């Protein structure tokens, strides 16, 4: 076995083992820690597959933001887990049906993996052949913002819907207020030091990722996630309060990315004969122009998803 193959095999075994332990873990907390580890290992697997863009996003979203969200959820569930409510067991029919469906899905996936079509269908040559037309150097950016722009636009809308879902958990009285408790600044806490020192560096890194995304691995999603992480850090250290969800500025930032994307897409009808088509020669500047507000919107949405539903009544 050559060293790279041994490394990949070890990584694959580790991913499977961590995935199994995540499912088998009894406690919610242990399960969440397993999930975060799984996300980071998966990022390594994407690096080994030379998909650095996916690896960056997986590490930032799968390991980072989702981990924080699940940890918060697990902290909330701890109270419910302790209460001696009778555990509900699903009926026999439900369990058998679930088992049959799961087996069918697993068998289907196994069939696809074990008996691939020959030759394996791929759009990679087509993606590379049309790359010059977009003016971009990174084929992943071209797929996300040119060939499959429609999917990316809908992803942004889904993020906003998720945030609306979180906000809708707020009681009527608190609607429009600030999310979460007010974190107090503790001067002697190392968290305060980190929240003062890290954000300038994080902001530069996220700008670098977005700007470089056109030609190298990076882009709006990893960049926005790092920006969100910096914001969450500052909020948790108490250096800045979470904004009221009724704030007009906040809402404009939230929808700016998707709105501009949609506007450019609609303009495509007039200037380029199709929805979400870019006029020849302007693809790259337009894509970079969309990515900047998109990054801000993603950062704001992720930060507020972690901050949670409004928990303090709005100041009148």
């Amino acid at each position: 076995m050559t060293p790279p193959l041994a490394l990949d095999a070890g990584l694959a075994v580790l991913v499977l083992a961590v995935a199994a332990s995540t499912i088998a873990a009894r406690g919610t907390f242990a399960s969440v820690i397993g999930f975060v580890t799984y996300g980071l290992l998966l990022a390594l697997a994407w690096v080994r597959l030379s998909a650095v863009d996916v690896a960056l996003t997986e590490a930032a979203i799968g390991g980072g933001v989702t981990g924080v969200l699940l940890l918060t959820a697990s902290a909330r569930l701890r109270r419910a887990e302790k209460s001696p409510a009778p555990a509900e067991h699903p009926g026999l029919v439900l369990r058998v049906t679930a088992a049959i469906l799961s087996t069918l899905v697993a068998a289907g996936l196994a069939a696809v993996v074990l008996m691939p079509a020959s030759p394996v269908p791929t759009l990679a040559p087509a993606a590379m052949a049309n790359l010059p037309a977009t003016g971009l150097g990174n084929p992943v950016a071209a797929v996300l913002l040119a060939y499959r722009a429609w999917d990316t636009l809908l992803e942004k809308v889904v993020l906003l819907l998720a945030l609306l879902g979180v906000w809708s958990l707020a009681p009527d009285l608190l609607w429009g207020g600030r999310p979460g408790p007010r974190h107090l600044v503790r001067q002697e806490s190392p968290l305060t030091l980190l929240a003062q020192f890290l954000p300038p560096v994080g902001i530069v890194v996220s700008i670098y990722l977005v700007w470089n995304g056109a030609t190298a691995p990076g882009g709006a999603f990893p960049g926005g996630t790092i920006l969100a992480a910096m914001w969450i850090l500052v909020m948790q250290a108490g250096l800045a309060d979470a904004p009221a969800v009724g704030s007009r500025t906040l809402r404009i930032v939230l929808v700016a990315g998707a709105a501009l994307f949609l506007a450019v897409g609609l303009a495509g009808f007039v200037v380029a004969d199709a929805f979400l088509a870019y006029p020849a020669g302007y693809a790259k500047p337009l894509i970079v122009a969309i990515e900047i507000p998109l990054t801000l919107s993603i950062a704001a949405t992720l930060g507020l998803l972690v901050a949670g539903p409004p928990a303090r009544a709005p100041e009148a």
Partner: protein
Amino acid sequence: MSLLRDLFTVVAVSAGAFFFLAGTVGLLRFPDPLSRLHALTKADNLGLGLVVLGLLPHADGWLGALKLVGIWLFALLAGAVAAQLIARAAGSAPPRA
């Protein structure tokens, strides 16, 4: 010269891996949160430092070397802060001004 450089890399990265191993054993074997943190942060910082040191001769120019050192410094910072926070949360940390 190239052989000497490779030898340096192998020795430094192996030493780094040894410290990671020692830290992991400490994390699994030590009895209370504070000693487990002690094992983890010391070994991770030193282990990662040695791995970075070993990779420096192979870095992609001085900018690549700078990035490697930057990664180590940020890991140090994050590790130190996280260890402090966990130790405080563990409740048994002696107050230090």
